[in-house]
Every structure is written in structure tokens, then in C-alpha cells.
């Protein structure tokens, strides 16, 4: 992008808003198009990968302006190849970096040229790792990516024990046509550990073309096999075009999505996600479907289309 930076917007920012603060400039060492960012609320730190220089940058949570990272993980011992995404675990003090066919695990407070403490890698893992999330409550490591299945390339979620290493098999694999995760796989994932929901940003692109199949979906950590998401929001055929980032705000029961095609940050009210006691429920539609209202939406869409054709 023309201008790499981290912008902090107020929670209620809307429409054209300027950020409250920005981390930017040469000293910040940020590269183009970061595909992951984590906020560590326990230690008040921001983690972001730097793909071009094979590094992980850590900023103070209050950083603003042209500031340097407080820590940098970089060097030949790190084995970082394409540090494009990451996740942190503040309970077990670890940092996870998916890197192609492996997941590298570092101490959360690692600094400089440090070796990973363990590596998850091997044919049984089925990695292609793209995005990653940690559930410290249920001690799980969830990886999104894509792989070959039935002769075609398809997206998947791989669920491991958090401390798995070496050539470990995933304990569950969410994959198949009902998942609606095509070859690109999920671009970013988060776990809401309190009740075990996995949020997935899926952009549904073919090549680089938007297909209308994009959505933010929710699976349970107990899901396995060819199962659809419990909920989708923002699509398919919705507002979201290429959702790439996803985060949640527990206090206000919101899900936040960054969309690279809209160049926008979209916030949804999503109380269902936070009110469900546990994701360990059967796929009970009476619990899962809270607000489908498709007929009303379809009506409004038709009105829009009619008005659009009238005006333009």
C-alpha cells in the first residue's frame, strides 16, 4: 500500500473518520499490507508481523506517532520465512506464527534472534497454515488454510491441541462443501474462548475476483467434518466483499471486520455470539438461528435495485 501504518479508530467511529492515533513512519518499520494484528490486553502490547523483513514487531499499547517497536523478533534462529500472520496466548505466554507448512511457537516476550520453542510441522498436520488463533480455555490451536481434498483444493479449519508439536494430527478438521470454504480458505480467524466460538473471515475470492460468496462465519470448537458455519454475517451476497480481518468486542457484543475491497472497517452488533453459554451445543437450529428475516431483506434489496435503476 502507499502508506503502511497502524491506525487506531474510536469504537464508535463511523463513515469518514480520522483515527485517534497512528503508528507510522520509518522508525516503526511497518511494511505493506499487514495481514494480522493482535492486541495483548494483559500486557498492553500490539503485535504485528513484518512479512518483507521476516520479523515480528511489538509496540507498546499506547504507541503513537513515529515510534520504534519495543521488541523485534528477527534473525536466522527464528526460522521466520514469511511472517504474515500471528496469534498470542496471554495465558500461556506464547506467540504463534503460521509459516506455510509449519507453525512456529515463541515465548510471548521473545526479543531479537530467538529460536522457536516448538514447531508444529509434518505431513500428518495437513498444514498449509494461513491464519491462526489460540483458545487458552480449551487449550486448542486452530489454523485455517487450504489443502487438497478429493482432488480439488479446498479451505479448512484444523483444530489441534494447543501444545501439539512435530508431526501431530489435528484432533478435528472442518472441511468440505457444506463449510462453504473454497480454495482460498479463511483469511483470518479468532476464537472467543469463553464459549468456544471460532470466527472466520472468508473472502471467497477466485483469483482476485470477488464472488459474492464472502462472509464472516462462526463455527464451534467442537465442530468436525463437513459442517456449515452456525451463523454467517455480512454475507454471502451481503455487505462484505472481501473480509480479511475479524475481531470482537466482548463488552459491547460486537464483531469487527476489515474488508480489503471496500477499504472499510465494518462493525456488527452480534449479541448471540456472546450470550450463548457454550459452543458445546448440538446443531440445534432453534438455538442457532436467532434472526434470519430473509424476506424483509430481500424486499429492501429489491427496492434498492428498483431505485438504482431509476436514478442511474
Amino acid at each position, binding site marked *: 500500500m502507499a502508506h503502511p501504518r497502524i491506525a487506531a479508530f474510536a469504537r464508535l467511529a463511523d463513515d469518514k473518520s480520522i483515527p485517534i492515533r497512528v503508528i507510522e513512519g520509518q522508525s516503526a518499520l511497518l511494511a505493506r499490507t499487514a495481514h494480522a494484528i493482535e*492486541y495483548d490486553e494483559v500486557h498492553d502490547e500490539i503485535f504485528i508481523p513484518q*512479512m518483507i523483513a521476516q520479523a515480528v514487531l511489538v509496540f507498546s499499547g499506547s504507541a503513537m506517532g513515529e515510534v520504534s517497536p519495543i521488541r523485534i523478533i528477527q534473525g536466522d534462529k527464528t526460522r521466520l520465512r514469511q511472517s504474515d500472520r500471528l496469534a498470542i496466548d496471554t495465558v500461556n505466554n506464547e506467540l504463534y506464527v503460521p509459516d506455510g507448512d509449519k507453525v512456529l511457537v515463541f515465548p510471548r516476550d521473545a526479543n531479537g534472534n530467538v529460536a522457536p520453542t516448538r514447531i508444529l510441522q509434518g505431513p500428518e498436520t495437513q498444514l498449509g497454515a494461513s491464519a491462526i488463533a489460540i483458545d487458552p480455555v480449551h487449550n486448542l490451536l486452530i489454523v485455517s488454510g487450504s489443502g487438497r481434498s478429493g482432488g480439488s483444493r479446498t479451505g479448512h479449519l484444523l483444530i489441534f491441541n494447543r501444545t501439539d508439536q512435530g508431526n501431530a494430527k489435528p484432533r478435528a478438521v472442518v472441511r468440505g462443501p457444506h463449510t462453504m470454504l473454497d480454495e482460498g480458505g479463511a483469511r483470518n480467524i479468532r476464537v472467543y474462548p469463553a464459549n468456544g466460538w471460532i470466527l472466520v473471515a472468508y473472502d471467497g475470492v477466485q483469483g482476485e475476483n470477488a464472488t459474492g460468496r464472502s462472509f464472516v462465519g462462526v463455527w464451534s470448537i467442537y465442530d468436525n467434518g463437513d459442517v456449515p458455519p452456525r451463523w454467517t454475517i455480512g454475507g454471502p451476497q451481503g*455487505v462484505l466483499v472481501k473480509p480479511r*480481518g475479524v475481531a470482537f468486542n466482548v463488552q459491547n457484543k460486537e464483531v469487527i471486520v476489515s474488508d480489503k475491497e471496500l477499504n*472499510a472497517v465494518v462493525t456488527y452488533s452480534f449479541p448471540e455470539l456472546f450470550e450463548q453459554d457454550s459452543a458445546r451445543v448440538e446443531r440445534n437450529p*432453534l438455538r442457532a*438461528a436467532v434472526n*434470519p428475516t430473509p424476506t424483509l431483506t430481500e424486499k429492501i434489496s429489491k427496492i434498492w435495485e428498483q431505485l438504482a435503476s431509476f436514478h442511474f
Partner: protein
Amino acid sequence: MRPRKILSVEFLAPVLLALATISVVGYHQRDLPFKAHQERSFNSPRLVSIKPLLVSIKPLIEEGEICTDPDSSESPNLASLGAGPTITSILAQRAMQEQRPARLDRGPARMIIDTSPTFSNVVVDVARNEVIAAGENTFQVLVYDRRANTPTNATMTEPKRVLGGNKTKIDYVCGLHVDPSTGDIYILNDDTETTLSVYSRDDQGNIPADRELKTPIYTFGLAVDEEHQELYMTVQRDGAVSVFRKQASGDEAPIRLLQGPRTRLADPHGIAIDSTNDLMFVTNFGYSARHSTEGVDLAKILPKPNWPIDNRLVIPGSGKFEAPSVTVHERTASGDTPPLRVIQGPKTRLNMPAGIAADPKRREIYVANDMDHSILVFSSEAGGDVAPLRLLKGSKTGLKHPSGLFLDTKNNELWVANFGNHSLTVYPLSAQGDTAPLRTIRSAPLGSPTTMVGNPGAVAYDTKRSELLVPN
């Protein structure tokens, strides 16, 4: 929790219809000033679709209420306890039977979005008095009259033509060139379409390019050597300069490649060619990693000759940070050839240097120094830790995150694309210090907020400060 029935469909439908009408008209007037933009919005799945306009129902969401079908006043959980089936539960049951998810059809509560073009680059068609600008956030290329000057109280200057839409393959455009003889417009994407698109001067709207060239991914800067009919582009991630025939198309291979640790290319951005003195200038952010080709048959890995070696051959842990620089190369440099000289160091003031242009006659180079909100002018013979010959910077200049620039040597003007304030600004070529622009073209009202959100690949929530953290 029992969802409350707050409004019926019968009541909502006319209200929403009225709101929709107001919103469409308002949106048309406020945010869709360009015809091509309209076409893009309604004929293309890309960019702003119709559905985001449903912010008109936002208050319902903000209140935490949920619109329900008229017969679904009972909560799903109550239904499960024997209160009888509801429409909601029946629809959900059907969804489950059909192996599909329960879709939450609700509009966003909020959306941070800038619908006005944010300029990442600019070129001038001197022969036809037109200015061509890259709207990075709106995936557009906009053509203005060169002599336009947006009045202070005007919302914006209307472009003469706009290219944009899914058929154009314009995607985060950063590189631009205009053919001085034909007026053809060359458009290079930074991300994510690996396509150079060439349009005839009069083209507009959402139409395919007259000519396309497959490019490496993560390109940024574009320069064309008209004298030698060659086309240069920088490749950020892989630290390379790819050179094609100017008329190359389709899957044609580059004719030269400059790449390797000795080149000192490090996250290269802008590129300029001085064909008179046979020089090539490249701005670098200073980030790099090394590749290893030992024992590798490149012909089996790379799609074509002279193609940049990519991250499949990158050496793990070889990444490094260096100071930003301008590397000066022989125009025809290829392979892993060291630069002739490097402008680098604290005296240079380089801070995220982006666009670059060369003035062969005056033997000067101009650098858009993004983070310093300045334009730096160096001697084209400079090297090492040197101060710029001239510095254009200050509150009167209107410079804000300058990303691209162009030298109009016929009219003796310097054009700057300001990523940070929706503007193109024009100065005398010799301007320095805190000089106000001769003219300004704006795509949004003066002082209009610029989100500067570009390719937001991720988001996080700062619970301590209640902030959304958004990287570009």
C-alpha cells in the same frame, strides 16, 4: 433471552422505503459524483455495493433490537420449550435440513469508509493538458483538466473521465504512466491484481483494458523509457526491478531483471529513468530478505525467464532492516549488480520515500518523502549521506503524505499526489521551503477527513482504550 418485537413489517416497509429513497438520493449527491463510480457501484460486485447503504436502519441495531417477522414474537428458546413453531424457528429448521448456516441478515452498526478518492500517484499528459491520478482506495483512475483549481468553497473538482470497476482490473493502483505521443494510460497495481493495464486516452468507465500484461505480484512503481521503449516496475516483496518491452502484453517475459543482495534494492517503491544519462533511480523503504538459488533449477520454478525470484526461495531468518535509500543504477543494470551510488543516511531526511522523478536537463531527482510531508530534491549525481539541494515542506504547501509526483518540464511544474488529504497539488519546479501550491485539485471538501485505510488485511480491538486497530 427473548427478542422483543418492536416494529412490524407492515410498519417498517414504508418507512424503510422512504429512508431508502432519501439515502439513495443523498448518496448519489454526496458520495457518487462520478458516472463511472456509479457504474462500478451498481454493475460490479466490487467496492461499495448497494447493501452498505442500508445504514438507514442502523438505529435499530444500535438500540440492540432485532427486527422479527410478524409471527416470530416468541423466542426460539421458548419455541423449543413447546410454545409452538415460529417463522424464525421454521426457517432455521429448514436451514439445518438443507445443511446451510443460519444467516444473520442485519446491516452493519457502523462502517468506517472513505468514498472519496485518495490519491497515490499522478502523471500529466502535457500534450493534451490533462492530469491522470490514481485513486488507490476507490480502485479508480481519474482524469482532470491540467489547469483545474478547486475553489476553496467547492466540494471537489469533477473529473473529466474515470476508469474503474471489476472489468478494468484496477486494484490499489500505485503506478501510472501516460504515453506522451498517444495519450495512452498505463496503470500498475500494487495489490492484488498482477496486471498492468493499458487504456486509450478517451477510455472511461468499467471496461477492459486495450492491452494487459501479466506482472509479478507486489509491484509498486512504474516508469517508461520512451526513448528505448522499455517499461520498468519495482517489486516490493522480492526486492527487484522488472523490465519489459514497452509494448509487451499477455504473458510476455521481462527482458531484464535486477535482483539480489548486491543491488541494495530493499522494499523498492518509486522508480525513475533518466534515458539521457542512462541512469535508473529507485526509492527503498529498507526492508529485505535474501534468496537462495543454490542447486535450484530456476527454469522449473519460475514461470518465465527474468521473472523475480520469489518467497519460495527466500532464506528463513535472513530478513533485515536498513535505513531508507535512493539507489542509483545504470539504466540497463541487470542481475545482482551493485548500484552506482546510494543516497542514504540521516542528512538525507528520507522517511518512507515513495514516488521519484528525474529531471535529466537539470540533473536533479525529486522524491516524495511520505512520512516527512515533504518533497526532497537531490542532485542526480549525489551519493552517500547528503542533504537535499532543496526541500519543499511546511503548512502552506498542502503536502500531506505525498506518495507520487510528476515533473512537467514543459510547463515547469511539479505535481504531487497527497495520500493524506484527497488532493493533487502543483508547484513551480524550483519551489522550496514553505511555498503554497499554484493550484490544487481536490476530490473531497477542503479539510474532509481522510481515513487513509488501504487494504486492511486485519483488525484488532484494543479493550483498554476501546479502539479499533487497523493496519494498512
